[in-house]
């Protein structure tokens, strides 16, 4: 290790110490300070543009640092933004609104903690909505960590709205069937019988002694299915089997990487609606009037997208000006 690096590490440790133990919390920048910060960031980019036009590209590490800064700063800013709502998010909301109280909804949690930043906000908003409107939720997971994520989502929903906790009873209003291995084969067999795939719930209560599941033997007894998915098995499998074979109405919440590939299913009405990535989650929170994590994150997300767009523009301006010179 070089001397510089030792100093850097030392400084970092010192910074952490100050941030953790000395600075008063929570930290929040006022509106004016936020605006000044944004303008300063803009000036940095103008400087980068000029440098790049001169043919001196900035280093990789500077780019990394800039991205890090523009992702972190918005956490301390208090700006409210008008979140755009896409039609596919609205149709999820509309479909949920059409369900009368007492409808049985299957919620499949097919993701794990690494993709939770994108999907957990949607799941929490969905749970709040469902409990608020008297929908009966049957939870399951095709990914081993899914049911745990569902549990966390329910706890966050209760925390945000304590009135729900009194109203909602396990076994009557919702049930967590847990995880079952077998990917798409699980869906296939659930089409015949839920009980064969889930002989008991997460707490080892036998299927038959759960009141909510009394008249639920397979998909034909359900009114709706909501799927939160981060990959395979996930939305594509639910569409291919539950929708195409068993005619269950399915809506989905997807990570942004997956979302574009799911759009053909929307147009063909194989999928009722779609919440795509963080922006889908934020829009859903807006529609259900229950702001949560996604609404908080969307500011950072906006900064990040803008930074990428600016970088592409700067790079291309430089590319074309050099091309012209060469001619």
């Amino acid at each position: 290790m070089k001397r510089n690096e030792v100093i850097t590490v030392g400084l970092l440790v010192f910074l952490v110490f100050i941030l953790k133990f000395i600075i008063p919390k929570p930290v929040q920048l006022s509106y004016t300070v936020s605006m000044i910060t944004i303008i300063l960031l803009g000036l940095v980019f103008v400087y980068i543009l000029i440098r790049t036009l001169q043919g001196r590209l900035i280093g990789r590490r500077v780019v990394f640092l800039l991205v890090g800064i523009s992702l972190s700063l918005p956490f301390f800013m208090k700006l409210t933004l008008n979140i755009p709502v896409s039609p596919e998010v609205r149709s999820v909301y509309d479909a949920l609104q059409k369900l009368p109280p007492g409808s049985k909804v299957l919620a499949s949690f097919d993701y794990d903690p690494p993709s939770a930043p994108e999907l957990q906000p949607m799941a929490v908003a969905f749970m709040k909505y469902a409990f608020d409107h008297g929908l009966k939720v049957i939870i399951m997971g095709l990914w081993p960590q899914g049911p745990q994520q569902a549990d966390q989502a329910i706890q966050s929903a209760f925390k945000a709205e304590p009135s729900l906790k009194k109203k909602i009873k396990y076994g009557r209003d919702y049930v967590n069937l847990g995880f079952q291995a077998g990917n798409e084969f699980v869906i296939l067999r659930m089409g015949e019988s839920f009980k064969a795939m889930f002989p008991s719930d997460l707490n080892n209560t036998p299927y038959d002694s759960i009141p909510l599941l009394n008249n639920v033997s397979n998909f034909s007894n359900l009114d709706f299915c909501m799927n939160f998915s981060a990959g395979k098995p996930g939305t594509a499998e639910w569409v291919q089997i539950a929708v195409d074979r068993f005619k269950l109405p399915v809506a989905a919440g997807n990570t942004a990487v997956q979302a574009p590939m799911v759009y053909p299913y929307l147009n063909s009405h194989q999928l009722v609606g779609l919440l795509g990535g963080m922006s889908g989650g934020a829009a859903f929170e807006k529609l259900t009037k229950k702001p949560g994590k996604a609404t908080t994150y969307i500011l950072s997300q906006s900064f990040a997208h803008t930074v990428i767009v600016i970088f592409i523009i700067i790079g291309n301006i430089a590319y074309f000006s050099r091309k012209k010179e060469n001619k």
Partner: protein
Amino acid sequence: MKFNNLFRFSVLFRFLLISSLLILLLLISSSVFGQDKPVVSDTLNYDSIITASKPLPPVDIQVKDEPGDAGGAINISWKPSPDEKNGKVKEYLILRSKSKSGPFKEAGNTTVGVTSYTDNKADIGVGFYYKVASLNFDKENGNYLWKSMGESEIYGPVKSTAQWFNVKRLNIFIGIIILCAAIIYFIFAAKSGKSFYIRKIAGIEEVENAVGRATEMGRAIYYIPGINDMDDVQTLASMTILGRVATFAAENDTRIDVPVSRSLVMVTAKEMVREAYSKVGRPDSFHEDQVRYITDDQFGYAAAIDGLFVREKPATIFMIGAFFAESLIIAETGNSIGAIQIAGTAMPAQLPFFVAACDYTLIGEELFAASAYLSREPKLLGSLKGQDFGKAVFLIAIIIGVILESFGIPFSKYFMAH
């Protein structure tokens, strides 16, 4: 007795008792207080509500064995009760019995707005009778304050049976048979020596130029075969293309380097490159270290390649195979040293980055088509032709279908009923 349901009987009995009490009360009150509003206590109130809010049953009920299944399911469908409009129906109950005289037990329920129910607990070969009832109720804290039910006639008996063919899937059956037949036909046609035309693929057409450029500049060519093992079809296709690239390189006497991340890929790649050199009559120009194993680790591999690029500044870079997140790092560095880059992958998430950062990109199926084209293997050529046949059928169907549908003639349902 017609009211075979105990529950209903008790309701009726209570109804009679209470309504007579009610009339008595009314009479007394009207005689005492004149024509004032009747005073009714809360508990008594419900029974008048029950009569007043009794919904009409649903109409047009049909009970059928579920078609195309393994048995055990009976489908009940109906038209909504006329009372659904005025909000008198909250739920539909499906009542079932093994004999016409009952007793009828609840087999399931649906929310209002739903017009069918599948009873999945119908044993095969047993005749069942069904009634559908509209239910109206009021609830407080999850407990029923009152319930009122309008029952339909009895339908049945219906037996569930297992079928030998799922008629609903006949169109799929015909479709898959036609497609498979076409593929098999073309594979055997290719095997018997028939040659098929394959269109030009931009990335492959450019291989010669790209190799030539490296020769002119006197620099090396790098070929990155992705990070998946030999069990991935993309890696297999990549090896075929490597054979072609290596042949050009050997002809021009330009050095080609193949850093790999899997030991099995190393063995195969070495074989391909060695063969290319001996094919053009320069077996001595081949050095073992041209194909080398770096590491299995994804980012470690990317970092190592990064270093190689910066140091050796190759003129031409091929990235063909299965790529994940490392694609970005490799393509960026390749771009920054000004190399010509030709990429190819079937990984949908990486394709956009390749298109944006490389000069030519083989998109998905093009990769496999290129490998079929270069290897001339009959089974690959035949499959490709068979798939094209499928595409042609779909393309024609789309044209005809869109025209027919635009004139109001249904066509899409032959492919899939929605």
